[in-house]
């Protein structure tokens, strides 16, 4: 069964360092997303991406964040200068269309020290 894959599963970084989280969405999906879950809190929408551009972003997704689809298969989330409060589980998701049926990856846990 096709699935969304994410790497790394866990990354530890120092505050101020750049981090890139990688995702391979399901191959025939057209919409891509990043969500995050801070420990003990709700899963929150960060950004959606379609047709090689951001469709929508939340207020969490500030100038420190960027997304890219550098080739036909990868979808990346970059945090330019990490802060302690960026520590969270980051979930990549993809969907065929806009009905909201998202398929999630297993998540990348980011720990900022």
């Amino acid at each position, binding site marked *: 069964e096709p699935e969304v894959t994410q790497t790394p599963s866990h990354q530890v970084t120092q505050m101020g360092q750049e981090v890139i989280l990688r995702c391979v969405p399901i191959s025939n999906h057209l919409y891509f997303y990043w969500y995050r879950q801070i420990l003990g809190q709700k899963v929150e929408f960060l950004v959606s991406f379609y047709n090689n551009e951001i469709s929508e972003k939340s207020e969490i997704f500030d100038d420190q964040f960027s997304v890219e689809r550098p080739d036909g298969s990868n979808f990346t989330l970059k945090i330019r200068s990490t802060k302690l409060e960026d520590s969270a589980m980051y979930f990549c998701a993809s969907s065929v269309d806009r009905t*909201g049926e998202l398929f999630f990856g297993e998540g990348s846990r980011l720990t900022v020290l």
Partner: protein
Amino acid sequence: AQSVTQLDSQVPVFEEAPVELRCNYSSSVSVYLFWYVQYPNQGLQLLLKYLSGSTLVKGINGFEAEFNKSQTSFHLRKPSVHISDTAEYFCAVSERDYKLSFGAGTTVTVRA
């Protein structure tokens, strides 16, 4: 904007007993409704969804949910749980687009 409230943060239940997880939402427009499950150290997996049609929705692993528009609820049920159903369950809503709003989650612990 929509919001989701999961009324129970923790639900302990004995094996083979029934379980119900409550979810209420608020939205000013028509919505799609979802239940996701997160097993320990795994990602979010779709259990079931309501897009339109019959208000009783059946999902994987014997789960079902009923959409009640007048009560703005989408409660999840299973008549007989297994140890393997121990997980965190998330109710989510979208206003017919791709942006999901999640509830805080309900941790189900099944005991023998």
